[in-house]
Each structure stands twice: as structure tokens, then as C-alpha cells.
């Protein structure tokens, strides 16, 4: 469990700049995917960096499986349990081949060779990059690069994976492949924090956290947010066109689920 209790944070001393986050209470459990939504500057990326100990709170506490992120002695316990995947995969790809890049983390752990091999094979298979081991990373598509970044994180065998807008720079195909990889993380028992601008991504999460002006504007089920237009508007969010289509169909008596945000699942309920 990653537990944030009464967390406040500002960059520099509080007198220097605005408080970025204040009074955040939130917990991420293993096997759970939480989508984090909010406007630019609402504190989403700061939240991610607090969860893996890159930043520590000014007030309150962040515990990762019981370890306080401010405990300098146990920083490695935190880092080994929490992996971070950033928006731009080029910022975290270092190897000259796919397998070498993926092996970078476990190599630094000083693991035996066959254990590294096993981890790399598993991680690449988990994100759908098996068979591309010898490919040079710069020849990958953007979506493949982002999945390689996720594989590199997975090879460290973390309990939690934090993704900071992993699909922001991708075309729709790349997005779909990365989202499938994110789904796979949850299915394999990882706790997943998925920061996104896409309201549709909230539909497939277990819970949704919406940040606004540094505070919690919503924390609950996807249905409770997506099915409530007033609440969405108060959070500064709006349904994507497919969500509008689904809600119009519901208004006409069709039993389209609130979380149906893609054409296939909308049409499937129509045909039933």
C-alpha cells in the first residue's frame, strides 16, 4: 500500500511559491489501478513524485508498504518497490538495443546473468515487445518506446508502477497498445497510478482521483464521476464525444454502461 496522509507540498519554501498540494489523503493498493485527472498545474506530477520519494512532503506523510519516504536510511526500500514511467520515453531509454535497455535496471542491482535474462524476457513479453530484443530503441515507434520504458520499470520487479501521462505523445494505435500494457500491470497484481488528460482513461480504472488547485476534487468510482455531468464540469472535465454519444443513447432508453467510452462497447449493448 502507498499511503498519503494529510500531505502538503510546495516547491521551495512556502513563502517562495504557491502550495502545490495540500491536505491530500489517498491510498493505492496492490492490484488496483487509479486514474489521476486534473488540469495542467493541478499537482498531478507532484503527486507522482511524492509517491516514489523523489519529493517528500512538507506536512503529512507518505508510507510505501509501511516505510516513510522521508527515512533516508530506507530510500532504497521505497525505490525498489515503486517504478516511475515518464511522459517522454526518450528521457529514460539508455540502451543501444531493446533488451540491453530493459536490462539496465536489473544489471545495476548486480543480479546474476540468468536472472537478468529471465526478467528481461518476462518484462518484454508483458508489454508485447517479445521478438524485438535486438532492435535499436531509436527505430521503435513512439508507442513501442513507451512500452519499452514500462518494461524497463517492470524488470525491477516493483510492487507499484506510476505512469505520468504515458500516452500524451502517442497516436491512437500507440495509445491503445500502451493502455493494454497498463491493464496488464494491474492484472499481474501491481498497484498502478495512471496520470492522464484523457477522461476516457478513467473508465477502465478501479478508482479515479481528480486534483484541482492542489486539493482532491473527486476520489471514487469511475461511474460516480463519468455519470455525473455536473461533477465533471465542476472538476473542469468534459466527456469525450463517445461518452456524449453513450449518454444520449442512455437518455433514449438504451442500457449503455456509463463506462462505455469506445465504439465497440457502445454498439455491443445496442445489438443486445
Amino acid at each position, binding site marked *: 500500500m502507498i499511503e498519503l496522509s494529510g500531505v502538503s507540498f510546495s516547491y521551495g519554501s512556502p513563502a517562495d511559491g504557491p502550495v502545490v498540494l495540500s491536505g491530500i489523503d489517498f491510498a493505492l493498493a496492490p492490484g488496483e489501478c487509479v486514474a489521476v485527472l*486534473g*488540469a*495542467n*498545474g493541478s499537482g498531478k506530477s507532484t503527486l507522482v513524485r511524492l509517491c516514489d520519494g523523489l519529493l517528500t512532503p512538507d506536512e503529512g506523510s507518505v508510507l510505501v508498504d509501511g516505510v516513510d519516504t522521508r527515512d533516508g536510511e530506507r530510500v532504497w526500500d521505497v525505490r525498489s518497490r515503486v517504478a516511475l514511467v515518464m511522459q517522454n520515453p526518450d528521457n529514460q531509454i539508455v540502451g543501444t538495443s531493446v533488451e540491453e535497455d530493459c536490462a539496465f535496471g536489473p544489471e545495476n542491482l548486480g543480479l546474476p546473468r540468468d536472472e537478468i535474462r529471465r526478467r528481461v524476457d518476462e518484462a518484454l513479453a508483458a508489454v508485447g515487445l517479445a521478438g524485438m530484443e535486438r532492435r535499436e530503441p531509436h527505430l521503435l*515507434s*513512439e508507442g513501442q518506446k513507451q512500452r519499452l520504458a514500462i518494461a524497463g520499470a517492470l524488470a525491477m520487479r516493483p510492487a507499484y508502477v506510476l505512469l505520468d501521462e504515458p500516452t*500524451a*505523445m*502517442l*497516436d*491512437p*494505435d*500507440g495509445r*491503445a497498445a500502451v493502455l493494454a500494457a497498463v491493464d496488464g500491470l494491474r492484472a499481474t497484481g501491481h498497484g498502478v497510478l495512471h496520470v492522464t*488528460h484523457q*477522461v476516457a482513461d478513467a473508465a477502465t480504472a478501479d478508482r479515479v482521483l481528480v486534483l484541482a488547485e492542489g486539493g482532491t476534487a473527486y476520489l471514487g468510482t469511475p461511474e460516480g464521476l463519468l455519470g455525473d455531468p455536473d461533477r465533471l464540469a465542476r472538476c*473542469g*472535465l*468534459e466527456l*469525450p*464525444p*463517445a461518452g*456524449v*454519444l453513450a449518454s*444520449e*443513447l442512455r*437518455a*433514449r*432508453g*438504451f*442500457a449503455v454502461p456509463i463506462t462505455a*467510452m*469506445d*465504439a*465497440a462497447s*457502445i*454498439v455491443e449493448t*445496442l*445489438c443486445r
Partner: protein
Amino acid sequence: MPLTAAHAGLVYSPGTAFSQAALEDVSLSVEPGELALVVGRTGSGKSTLLRLLAGLVAPTSGSVHTDGLAAMVFQDPESQLFAETLLEDAAFGPRNLGRSDAEARAAAADALAAVGLDPAAFGGRSPFTLSGGEARRAAIAGVLAMRPAYLLLDEPTAGLDPSGRRAVREAIGRARTTAGIVLVTHDAEEFLGDADLVLMLETGRTVFSGTREALLAEPGAFEVAGLRPPEVLRAQMLALPSASAKASYTLDPREAAALLAESRGDAG
């Protein structure tokens, strides 16, 4: 005279072992006031086309013509903001075109207003105190201040939150009253409703070229280009595949709901 690419092609390193065609036989013609949407996957050649239209590179085959300035807004343009105030930043372009100080500042103020940044409130602000959406619009204003006949935009809303996207889309709508627009994106959904013309590229070749209405009637082009159609359109393609239904495909989710509901009769 419109901004025109006629059978334009671009080969990198022609005549060498590294010769690579980035664009082949692509034609596009945009009039002032029109919005042409260029869509394709990453690597389809759409940014290359924009560079040809801006005159940044010359085509290796075919030709590109324009009667006025075709000015480009690159991806992530806010990284190029540099001056101490927004007004000075937007005045940089017209100054470099040889306009007088007064003319340059007037053009900058007009451009800031056009992107929804009131020059009285924002003109004296530092570019480094802006939100993501404001900075993007300030960067677009810097190009608009040169009063281009054509505005070329590369993924203008990438990385912005919904309110930032909305504001940029409105700014583009206003820019269209004075300029023709060519807008490149890999996500057709956001701007397709605003487009007069659509050009779809895949590995440097034209997959579709025509009006938005023609594309809606022939949405199979999305798949040929390796693109996912907007979800609202895809729902109609899945539920109403007949040739006769294609003529009524719409991007409006409310109209689409009516079409789908009608085809299924009343719900239980």
C-alpha cells in the same frame, strides 16, 4: 491565389545509398479562410509536408506555390518564447520583417487579442508565468503578428489539458478569419469537425484527399491510413455498415445517437 503543393515529393539524400522518400506525389490547395487537416500516423510524412509548405525545404519533385507568407508554428512552440514580456515576444516577428516599432507593437497587440490573451492584461506579463494553454497561444500569437496569409500548425494542442485545448481551438477559429490554415495531427477527432479539406498520408503517400463530407461518406480511408476513426464515427460504421447509411454518417454525438437509436427501433 491559394497555397498549393502540386505533385510535391521530397527525397532525403537523393542519389546516395541512404536515399529515402519522405513524401511522394502529394497535392494540396488551401484558400484563405479554409482549414485543411493533414492526418497520418507518426512517420507518415505530415510534418515534412508542412515544412515544404512553409518553404523550409524545397521539394525534390513537383512544386509548392504561395502568394503570401506561409508561417509555421512548430510542435511545442512555447519553448521558443524568449522576450521579457508577451508583447515584446509577439513583436519580434514583425520587427524582423522591417516593420516600425509602432507597427510591430500594434500587430503584436492584435495577435495577442486574436488568440484570446487580452493585450492589456497579458501584454506586460513574462512568458514564463503562463499556463500551458496560455503559453501555446502566446507562441501562436508570435506567428500571427507577422500577418501570414497562411498559418501552418503542427499538433497545436498536443500535451495541453482540456481547457487549454479548447482555448487553442478557439484561437485557431479566429485566425481562420484572416488566414488559410493547414493543421497537422495524428488524432483526427479533435479538428475534423472544423476541417474543410482533409489529406490523409501513410508512409509519404496520399491515402485520401477531399472534403470532410467526402471522408465521412468513405470512412474506410482511416483504416487504409492506419488510423482509428473518431469513436462516434466508428460506432456508426459498426452499427450501420450499409452503403446507404454511409451518406448520413455524422461527427456530432447527438445526431449519431439519433441515427443509431432510429436504426434499432425503440429501446426496451
